[in-house]
């Protein structure tokens, strides 16, 4: 059953370093290529301007497979406390 990523993941965009590892993991897992434009998570500069932080969001295709969350090393993507 497909989960809603917003229900299971906590996103802290202010911590996003823009490494794009989440996007590369996702596009590789589902399309066998390294291609951020195919990822089911979007990492965009806030207001299109560098230095002002980023907007992090999941696309409707996201299956909440956890892969990107496990690989975010900067604390921007975390599992919600399920307790």
């Amino acid at each position, binding site marked *: 059953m497909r989960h809603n990523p917003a229900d299971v993941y906590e996103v802290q965009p202010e911590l996003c*370093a823009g*490494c*794009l*590892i989440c996007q590369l993991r996702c596009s590789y897992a589902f399309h066998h290529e*390294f291609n951020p*434009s195919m990822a089911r998570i979007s990492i*965009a500069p806030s207001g299109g301007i560098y230095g002002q932080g980023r907007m992090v969001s999941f696309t409707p295709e996201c299956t909440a497979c956890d892969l990107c969350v496990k690989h975010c090393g900067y604390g921007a993507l975390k599992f919600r406390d399920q307790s």
Partner: protein
Amino acid sequence: MNNNVGFAGRILYVDLTTGQIRKEPLDVRTASQVIGGWGMNALLAYDLIKPGVHAYAPENPIIVGAGVLVGTLSPCCDKVFATYKCPATHVVGTAVGGNKLGATLKWAGYDHVVVTGESPTPVYLKVVDDDVEICDASAIWGKNIDEATDVLSRERGAGAAVACIGPAGERLVNTAMVLINKCSTFGRTMGGVLGSKKLKAIVVEGTRGLQVADGRRFMKTVDALTESHRQDPLREQWIKLGLYFILPVWAKAGHFIANDGAEVYPENEAVERFGPAVYEKLKRRSEACAACMAGDKVVLDLREGKFAGATASFSCPLVAVLAFGVKCRLETLDQAFACLDLANRYGLDALGLANMVDWAVGLYEKGIISIADTGGLPLRRDYETSVILIEQAARNERFGAILAAGWLAAIRRFGPDAERYATHVKGGDPDFDPRVTFGVETLGQATNPRGAHDMPAGGIMIALGRQPEFFAKMARRMGFPENENLSLEPPGANLGRYLAHYENWCTVLNGLGICFRMQSSRLYDAAACAELYTAATGIDVTPTQLVEAAERAYNVYRAVNALHGFGRKDDRFPEKWLKGALRLGERELRLTDYFKTAPVHPNDFERMLDDYYDEKGWDVATGVPTREKLIELGLEKIAADFP
């Protein structure tokens, strides 16, 4: 969908004079002979950068290339290179940048971009997959890098990388530079070359993506390296502070050189004024290059200067301390960040400028130059003077312009008395003083064709007190040949020979696009590099073959510079390093071997160079690759140009 693997498979040629745009297939076989990436840049430079060409001539190309593994998930692998004739030093140098310019290029379907010619009006180059366009830049010409990048990134949207120059580059300041996404420095002297072409920026966005030949095999090594980074006991520190966490260690070791190379900056002052505790209060968050797990670029709050209240993004905040903080004797970290930020916005090489300010103040104090030379500006090491000189340099006017023209031009102007005090190699700015620690990185500042510039692949001999066993272990990791001549066992530590091979290892990292910074490069060894290369490109290489390809690439780089007149005569140390003393508290540091067993005299230095050229298989008298060596490496076409 892109049909190539590992390599994107194309080179983009842009002529700004005619407006012609060509996309040509990359000859992967040729590229792989020199690994690709950095090595392929050198091969292109050999053909395209003609001896005698002026740096600002339309024919001087800018050759941009991404490392072979860039664009993949190989950890901390996002380096992009630019090769061009440098205006300040006249060498053919290759500069390094990061922050997604290389990755977006690969995802757009290009390994290299070669820009030649000169546009009659300001333009920027837009590359979005197959859509390549020379666009009008008149609305952003004159804007600083911060403003111009905002305009361009707003136009292009989320995934674009923007490499941009500021007013300094537009005004042909020799030490102007390019910033990628406002943050990653790209070419300490490349800004003016873009300026001479009226090229304000290169904007790249890629959606074609990149495939590898054997994904399962590739990801197995990626996962192992990822895990090894996770297990790094220093990982928390890297994420929290990046390279900045090394500040107290370097301050203690003596790497903060002050007072025009005469003394070491006091350790306690460095830590109190500029240390991690002060830094943490200003840091907002980390910034990372693509696929980097140890992102040490930073966004922070400015509290001083013209842009107080704004945020700044720095590639290496430690540079603010090494440059302005220490050299210009600033009072606070806020002042140092304000100076670095100002230099960045104008697109000036901060480190070079601060070094030259330090030197000029020394000359002024010694009476070698006077207030008549400085245009009425009393020279001091302080914040106000630093800001004035940055502003003058960015406008390419008054005394600041003389300094920002670079070492060679300034020395010509101030004469031989001034030259005696100058700290440069081939016009390039050293990062480390060998009197503190004399290792491969510091000796390499003499032999680097680009001029003094460190290649600290893990900073192996920048740290003090390591034992010979460590260097033996590192030699194996770096794929050195088994050879007792390479021992770093004292006495008789064979630094010149060790360096000859160390440069090949640095070239492996460059070819693949792996970051030099110690938290990144320490993840890799020659075996992992060969495995990733094979899995990504489908070209089977052993670690030994990969290192051989690196040697071939480095020979091409050296050969290009030999054609441009450089050789052993230019592989020099500044006189003060060979003969002078550096004060560290009560002590005097003089040039000594790494293990601090014996002094190194000028003739010992020459012997090290003899060993180095001999190990390279180059002519010992001239320091130039021999025809025999080039043929041995399979570089017959280039060999024909050499005796």
